[in-house]
């Protein structure tokens, strides 16, 4: 039976159905889908309509392997540093299941949390021109559009910032992908067909997020 939605309902459904997918089947992503995703990015808003975004579509296995190594290396370094200073243990103090906690520590400190870029059928590297004022905001809007279109197409994706956070890793990306210095590499979007459905991650309630007129006074009452 076909479900029908108003435009607002359909928009909210796509937003709510989006997941961060890190495990993909071997099924390739069609050129038609890639084009739809990039077209969605192209329609994003940007300051002064500067449209600073540029994209590199990476399907080559060796290049994806290198992206995974750079992303995994960066995540592994940062999370291991967090672990050895016990800050990670503090962050996960609320998790009672010791096995789950151990698995989370292993996944994070190994860098595997970001290394899956190697296994996605396609990675889209999102770049931005530096000669504009609003590069991070403009490109982020484009990325969210991409993620929503991925969801609408029944595909899965994950917005991966790990290979771009540290200057040292971003320099490795520049060299690997031959990106000039006046272009910033912002993020990499791993895209493919999900291996399984994923449950939604918890979200903070609106009454904790929204203030009335000035900071501090809740806009919404806490729901019972």
């Amino acid at each position, binding site marked *: 039976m076909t479900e029908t939605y108003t435009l607002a309902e359909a928009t909210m459904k796509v937003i709510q159905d989006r997941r961060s997918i890190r495990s993909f089947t071997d099924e390739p992503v069609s050129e038609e889908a890639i084009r739809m995703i990039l077209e969605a990015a192209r329609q994003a808003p940007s300051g002064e309509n500067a449209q600073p975004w540029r994209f590199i579509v990476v399907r080559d296995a060796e290049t994806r*392997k290198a992206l*995974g190594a750079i992303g995994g290396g960066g995540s592994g370094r*940062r999370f*291991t540093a*967090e672990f050895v200073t016990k800050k990670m243990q503090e962050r996960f103090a609320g998790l009672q299941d010791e096995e789950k906690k151990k698995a989370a520590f292993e996944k994070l400190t190994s*860098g595997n949390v970001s290394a899956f870029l190697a296994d996605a059928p396609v990675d889209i590297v999102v770049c931005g021109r530096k000669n504009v004022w609003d590069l991070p905001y403009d490109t982020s809007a484009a990325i969210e559009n991409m993620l929503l279109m991925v969801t609408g197409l029944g595909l899965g994706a994950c917005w991966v910032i790990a290979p771009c956070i*540290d*200057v*040292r890793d971003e320099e*490795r990306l520049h060299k690997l992908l031959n990106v000039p210095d006046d272009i910033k590499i912002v993020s990499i979007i791993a895209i493919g067909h999900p291996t399984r459905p994923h449950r939604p991650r918890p979200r903070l309630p609106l009454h904790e997020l929204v203030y009335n007129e000035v900071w501090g006074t809740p806009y919404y009452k806490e729901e019972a």
Partner: protein
Amino acid sequence: MTRENLPSDYANSVIYEIQKAFWDERGNGARFRLTTVGREYFSDKCLAQIHGESVGEIVQGIGKALAEEGIAAGMSYEEEDRIVRLKIPGCLHQSVERRFLAAGAEPLMCVPANLVVLAVEAVLKRPAEIAEIKVGDDGCEVTLVLFEPRPGL
């Protein structure tokens, strides 16, 4: 303008404000945009002082360069597996770290520690990460983690 007539409190206040601007923009992520600060100084002044391929020889070389330039009183270290704890007394820049702590934020950067990380990467060909910067009365203690090279890189 020469270095001799550049007051350190002026230099440190500018360094603090630049770092603070990074922090205001990127929050805790700002520290990862500062990991290569000192690279030019490392190439010009430090690399030639490193006469071996061990952590000890790296720390000794960087410490000597910093002491000769009057940037820090020296540098020592303790090593346990992949953890290296640097002790840096008398650093010219410590007031920058203190201002971050006074503002309720963790220090974003330690140039002497950056120099050691740059040396570990250049000489030992091993990735390294600054895990923690502690500011004390006797100097700073900086914890580094050294890694094995990752396959595929």
